[in-house]
């Protein structure tokens, strides 16, 4: 028995390259046709019988106290079914757009009329929304403890070249194209059905149980498709709870609350701003020895944490200070690779400025110091070389300031990044039906990354059957629980659980089939729609015939992660390069080309892995050039809660995107590693560096607007570097 266990344990691994018919190939999404034909149903599309429209009255002031709240007129309005105050007199409001009262009515216009009829009086309190200068923040500046490693003072004395610079990125929002929201209904006194746009199907019930006073097991949560989350959709949110309460008040009728675009941008999450002054010291040969940074930034009311700087490269001597600025700019939420894009910009831009001061190619400076990246140094080295070839870096790079005539200046920039991305906890049930069809059920979600497809690939490849033979069912709490899609943990979790389930199911099937083929179970393998004896393909049985031997009883096996075998690990490494053109008369930056070279261990689906990188680069171009949650110092409100002035990149703005995924034995053997966050980290730094290379001066802050580019050009002449 012990021997048998040992043998089974040894089998929990990914198939060898020659045994992969689907894993690692370019495979179109199984739900692609549904999505492009509009048949895919998002939470926004859920319209239940008797459904009511929920709307929320929001505070127009950034800081206020509720002095009077009167909903009596609204309660009597025809068509209004429920009125739910979310704040009471005396409550303090800390950002514009915060929820005050929720109503449910027979339709949206009636609900809007109701909202307008609510009487609220506010006592306005002083607000503060500025984040670029900690000195202006007064009491709202909260310094964190200084962090020191090594002996930075001695190291700076020893340094032969010191570069100093100012860098940062503005507050931005998640801007999910499907806004946050839910449709909630009660079935009797104790059961709740929730359709919600979420990154954590299995996590929602537990968060709603307390506030609603029903057991989590009585709350069913469903979601077929989601239109973007980016880290902002893990909870039911106050409006999800409000929808549930309104529904109960209205006798259980479904209530739909989806945020309007302005609310989505004002209150449904923001990525904190971070700015910093950085000094980096090096020897004349480029060996980096000293780091000093003073950073500040805001994520609204909760203080921002210190940044993980210097990023990727562990510079031996460091001193870091951070000041959190508490503002009334609204709630922050995890935004795809929290803290990393900011830390990456501060580090990679500072190193780029150091390279300029050293009169070195920044690519050479990175390679020179790449051992500071630790155990992944060789991966970065290989990736930097591949990226350089794809960008023709050595041929096209020039020192700072494009010398060519005319107003259009071209430049190249480089950046590197990392992310852990180990698979999350996940359970799945795999059923082999006697007709040969296979079903996989798990309470996971497809965040738009191709999770359904990845699960189907793993199961089909393991069972040796075609992709179409596998039905993946996700997005329902009736299925076994799976972790939320955060931190790039989904692919590792779902693929590992699915692989284990499929291997175990196969073992059980082999046990039934072995006598038929005059073999022992461990001599069997599943390949190309048949179960056959290893080394003797003539002794085989078709998959359907094998499954028919299940005697009418479907075979269901539970797969889990974590579990036996190392199927997922952590630590992805990536490199990106940008090629930009800058019009130095208008300050407008255009992307010519971006290259992403990325490792994520064993790749399940090459096509969707590449898509992740394309999407991340587009998102990165957006925040590098356009996105900013513009807060008005006078009213304390967000000035651009719309798609006109909250600018996102469009297809015409992104240039040529080139993706190279690292593959091969040394990547495969690490198992599956998540890819959601890594490729979105570097674009800001790579683009900022490319702009500096083009125009000969650093534009300190993202987004790189015409205003900021022209301002930097106007100040050009005074170099930051001291040699």
């Amino acid at each position: 028995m012990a021997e048998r266990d040992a043998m089974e344990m040894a089998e929990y691994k990914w198939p060898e390259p020659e045994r992969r018919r689907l894993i690692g190939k370019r495979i179109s999404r199984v739900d692609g046709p549904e999505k492009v034909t509009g048949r895919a149903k998002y939470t926004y599309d859920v319209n239940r019988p008797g459904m009511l429209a929920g709307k929320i009255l929001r505070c127009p002031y950034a800081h206020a106290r509720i002095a009077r709240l009167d909903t009596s007129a609204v309660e009597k309005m025809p068509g209004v079914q429920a009125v739910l105050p979310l704040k009471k007199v005396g409550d303090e409001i800390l950002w514009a757009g915060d929820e005050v009262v929720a109503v449910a009515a027979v339709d949206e216009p009636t609900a809007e009329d109701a909202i307008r009829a609510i009487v609220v009086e506010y006592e306005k309190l002083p607000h503060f929304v500025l984040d670029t200068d900690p000195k202006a923040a007064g009491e709202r500046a909260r310094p964190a403890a200084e962090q020191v490693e090594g002996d930075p003072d001695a190291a700076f004395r020893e340094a032969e070249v010191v570069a100093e610079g100012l860098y940062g990125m503005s507050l931005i929002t998640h801007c999910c194209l499907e806004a946050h929201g839910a449709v909630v209904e009660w079935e009797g006194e104790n059961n709740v059905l929730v359709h919600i746009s979420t990154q954590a199907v299995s996590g929602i019930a537990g968060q709603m149980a307390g506030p609603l006073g029903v057991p989590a097991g009585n709350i069913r949560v469903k979601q077929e498709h989601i239109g973007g989350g980016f880290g902002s959709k893990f909870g039911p949110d106050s409006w999800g709870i409000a929808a549930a309460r309104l529904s109960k008040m209205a006798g259980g009728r479904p209530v739909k609350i989806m945020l309007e675009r302005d609310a989505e941008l004002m209150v449904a999450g923001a990525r904190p701003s971070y700015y910093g002054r950085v000094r980096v010291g090096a020897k004349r040969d480029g060996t980096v020895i000293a780091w000093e940074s003073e950073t500040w930034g805001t994520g609204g009311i909760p203080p921002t944490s210190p940044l993980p700087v210097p990023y990727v490269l562990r510079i031996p001597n460091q001193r870091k200070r951070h000041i959190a600025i508490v503002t009334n700019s609204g709630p922050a939420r995890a935004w795809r690779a929290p803290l990393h894009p900011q830390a990456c910009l501060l580090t990679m831009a500072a190193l780029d400025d150091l390279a300029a001061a050293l009169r070195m190619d920044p690519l050479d400076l990175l390679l020179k110091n790449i051992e500071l990246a630790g155990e992944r140094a060789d991966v970065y080295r290989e990736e930097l070389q591949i990226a350089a070839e794809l960008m023709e870096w050595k041929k096209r790079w020039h020192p700072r300031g494009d010398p060519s005539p005319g107003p259009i200046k071209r430049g190249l920039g480089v950046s590197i990044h990392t992310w852990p991305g180990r698979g999350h906890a996940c359970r799945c049930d795999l059923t082999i039906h006697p007709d040969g069809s296979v079903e996989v059920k798990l309470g996971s979600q497809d965040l738009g990354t191709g999770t359904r497809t990845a699960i189907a690939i793993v199961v089909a490849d393991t069972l040796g059957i075609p992709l179409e033979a596998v039905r993946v069912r996700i997005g329902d709490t009736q299925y076994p629980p799976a972790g939320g899609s955060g931190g790039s943990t989904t692919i590792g979790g779902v693929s590992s659980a699915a692989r284990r389930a499929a291997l175990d199911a196969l073992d059980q099937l082999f046990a039934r089939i072995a006598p038929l083929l005059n073999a022992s179970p461990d001599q069997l393998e599943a390949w190309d729609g048949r179960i056959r004896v290893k080394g003797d393909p003539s002794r085989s049985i078709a998959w359907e015939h094998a499954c028919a031997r299940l005697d009418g009883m479907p075979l269901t096996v539970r797969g889990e992660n974590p579990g036996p075998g190392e199927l997922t690990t952590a630590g992805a490494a990536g490199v990106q390069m940008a090629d930009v053109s800058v019009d130095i008369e208008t300050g407008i930056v255009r992307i010519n080309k971006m290259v992403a070279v990325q490792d994520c261990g064993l790749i399940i689906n090459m096509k969707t892995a590449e898509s992740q990188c394309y999407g991340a680069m587009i998102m990165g171009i957006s925040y590098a050039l356009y996105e900013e949650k513009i807060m008005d110092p006078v009213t304390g409100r967000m000035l651009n809660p719309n798609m006109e002035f909250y600018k996102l990149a469009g297809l015409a703005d992104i240039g040529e995107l080139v993706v190279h995924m690292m593959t091969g034995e040394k990547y495969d053997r690490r198992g599956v590693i998540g890819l959601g966050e890594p490729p979105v980290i570097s674009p800001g730094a790579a683009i900022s560096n490319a702009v500096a290379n083009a125009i000969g001066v650093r534009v300190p802050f993202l987004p790189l607007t015409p205003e900021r580019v022209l301002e930097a050009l106007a100040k050009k002449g005074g170099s930051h570097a001291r040699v």
Partner: protein
Amino acid sequence: MRAFEYVSPTTKEQAVALLSSTWGETEILAGGTDLLALMKDDVVRPRRLVNIKEIAELRGISFSASTGLRIGATVTLSELLDHPDVWRHYPALVQAARGVTSPQIRSMGTVGGDLCQRPRCWYFRSGFGLLARDQTGRSLVLEGDNRYHAILGNEGPAYFVNPSSLAPALIAYGARLRIFGPRGTREVLLERFFRIPKSEAEREYDLQPNEIVTEILVPPPPVGMVSATYEVRQREVLDWPLVTASVALVFDGQRVRSARVVLGQVAPIPWPSPEAERALVGKAVTEEVAQAAADAAVQRARSLGKNEYKIQLARVAVRRAIQQAVGGGTRR
């Protein structure tokens, strides 16, 4: 959006009869690309919408060498861009229309609507009124974030910029508007149509609440005219231009006999620049002359605090529009 009454007359007389003589009670619906957003944001609250797209005589484009171009008010930007005579004779207008880089808006948005759309000022759109003042009367634009606001004609109290994409080009070509109201038809030079409001009660154009723009009339192109529009826009996809400039230069041999230089997105009205025009007339268009005209165009420009960069953009737009018109220089 608040409930409203919807009517769809088939004659301009019916339309005018259905419009209120008081602002705010009724609104004219053409493409709706601006109006519906204003209604959803509760910035305008009409009780009745008067759809003018069913009025046949407001449609169509025609051109003759003797009378010029006639554009019906409900002609869409796509229809304008599909017309060969517009391409042949009015390149600045084509370039301006192509700057609206949303196929949806080009398909729905009308020429009349482009001229009559409301300012994009974010304080106006947040419900603080056209002049963007708080209860105490102070200007939110002056004290707040004015990065997209006016650099010319910004003596106050209006600081928004006119958002029309087509107006600078049409003004450069000397276009007139035909307007129909209760007292019949009147014509106004497009340049005079736009106004800088002095109080919240005023509109930013010369139109009564019960009048409709029916036609845009553009004179035939004079012999020796070259023209161009240059737009500084941050994104290639749909984005409000930061600055535009349209120029129409009539040459007499090598020298400019007459010039029109009109800036957009820089002032509460499309902004003709007589200073720039004077710098061009009588001269051959060299790089230096183009630069002098560009400098002259922003001579009176003034930053409100955060929009200094727009002065530089305006200068560049004027110079590049001139260079583009004469067939050189940096093109987008």
